[in-house]
């Protein structure tokens, strides 16, 4: 869908990280966790391309008092890294942006009887909140959250409020354990019995570590990837990633935008 969204709120949740709520048509309430949106930052030429962001949350509110009808909203959580996100961070309630949403496939929620392990690195937690919200309805969910320093650890309270058990690690030990969140997660998996699935999103080295753990422990794992995108709909072939069977002779490229951004880790070629 393409629509003009009104910004409902846009606030800094940690230095350099913003959470933005935008109005959306009712159909968006059916978006699947792991799907993403593409934002046209300004109705102008610079920045030129749309910027992709995970869906942090969707929902519908109806004010009991104002008598307004129900209003669907979509939220994103973003980090200011360049001119697009910087411009977004200046927007206020009442400003508008043009959105394409929902895009991509999303996470497979899988078997309710198993434990769900969520692993997020830095801003990589963005698509995991909406996922957690869906998963806790049916499964036990643990969330492993890592970042460089404590300012990069976002929304712990929000996850805990869902009833998710949350584990934090920072590279510098300023919050939670010192070290890699993937190590904390691996220790947990090794110690525990029963079936589980890992859902991961974050920087590539973290995803590689997670894929390694999944490989070693035989735990199924879904990862959400990022890639430079132009169209977001499988047309430009700008965002591809190497599929499992890829070789130079017999290429197997998948579109992150259309075939992903979520992939079962064993469907991809890791280096």
């Amino acid at each position: 869908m393409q629509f003009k969204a009104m910004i409902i709120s846009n606030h800094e949740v940690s230095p350099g990280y913003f959470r933005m709520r935008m109005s959306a048509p009712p159909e968006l309430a059916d978006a699947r966790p792991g799907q993403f949106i593409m934002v046209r930052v300004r109705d102008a030429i610079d920045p030129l391309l749309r910027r992709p962001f995970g869906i942090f949350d969707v929902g519908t509110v109806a004010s009991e008092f104002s008598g307004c009808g129900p209003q669907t909203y979509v939220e994103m959580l973003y980090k200011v890294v360049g001119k697009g996100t910087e411009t977004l961070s200046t927007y206020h309630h009442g400003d508008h942006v043009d959105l394409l949403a929902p895009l991509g496939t999303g996470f497979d929620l899988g078997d309710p009887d198993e434990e769900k392990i969520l692993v997020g690195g830095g801003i990589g937690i963005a698509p995991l909140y909406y996922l957690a919200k869906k998963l806790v309805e049916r499964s036990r969910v643990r969330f492993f959250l890592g970042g460089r320093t404590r300012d990069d650890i976002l929304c712990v309270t929000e996850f805990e409020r869902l009833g998710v058990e949350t584990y934090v690690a920072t590279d510098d030990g300023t919050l939670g354990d010192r070290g890699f969140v993937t190590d904390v997660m691996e220790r947990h998996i090794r110690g525990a019995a029963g079936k589980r699935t890992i859902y991961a999103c974050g920087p590539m080295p973290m995803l590689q570590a997670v894929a390694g753990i999944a490989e070693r422990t035989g735990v199924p794992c879904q990862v959400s990837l990022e890639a430079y995108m132009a169209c977001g709909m499988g047309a430009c072939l700008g965002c591809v990633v190497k599929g499992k069977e890829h070789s130079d002779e017999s290429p197997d490229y998948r579109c992150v935008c259309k075939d992903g951004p979520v992939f079962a880790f064993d469907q991809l070629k890791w280096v």
Partner: protein
Amino acid sequence: MQKPDLSVEIAGITLRNPVMTASGTFGYGEEFSEYVNLEAIGAIITKGLSLKPKAGNPTPRIVETTGGMLNAIGLQNVGIDAFVEKKVPFLRTVATPVIVNFFGNTLEEYAELAERLDLIPEVAAVEINISCPNVKHGGIVFGTDPKAAYSVVKAVREATIKPVIVKLSPNVTDIVEMAWACADAEADALSLINTLTGMAIDLDKRRPILANVTGGLSGPAVKPIALRMVWQVARAVKIPVIGIGGIMTGIDALEFMLAGATAVQVGTANFLDPGAAGRIAAEMERYLADNGIADVKEMIGALEV
């Protein structure tokens, strides 16, 4: 006033309006069908096709630059067999002319593919991408050497009775010389411009951003260059010219027509606004209506210099 007549004719094909989607930016049409009424656009030009499937380049393949973008997709495509099997059935259902953009690495490959395309009734015309290195002749690019361009166009011309459009590369000293060579080889129309070769660098990593090092620049940044080349070529040849390069609005499209283009293609704009092609046609219609112009064909080459 009556609705303005937006129809134009290119190489014997009548288009309901002059706005086509540029190759490589619109997939095979289906991808965009949710966002734009495919039957509101002039023609669909499909992603550059080759005989065999092509892997394309490693990633990153795209990067934004000021007012434009670089791409080094590397002509990834499904190959002619999968095209016929998987893409044509959808295109058959759309009442809009389909033009197939294609390329080869040798003269023979160009000719063979043209023969194959000649047999597909859904293909209204072919567009030859000559911006490819000729692997048999030490990699000299067909699109920057008039003699090589002549021979590839000639080979295709002889292999198909479908209208042949030749897509010119702007990376040349003299675009008119290239246009003449293609016209001499009996091209039915010329389209220009393809992308300009450029590069972007990641300072911190000290590496090119694109895995392929260089890529093709497109988008509004290149529009002045495209407009100039279309103007030069349209004055120099008798066959119709299709203007491409940075078209974002109906105004842009009409500027290209003033410069001599009979029709236009919209590329990068599809990424910002998936409904761009339909919107641009509507904007053209509005401009004509507002200005009492009954027929868009009046605009072609109407620039006063």
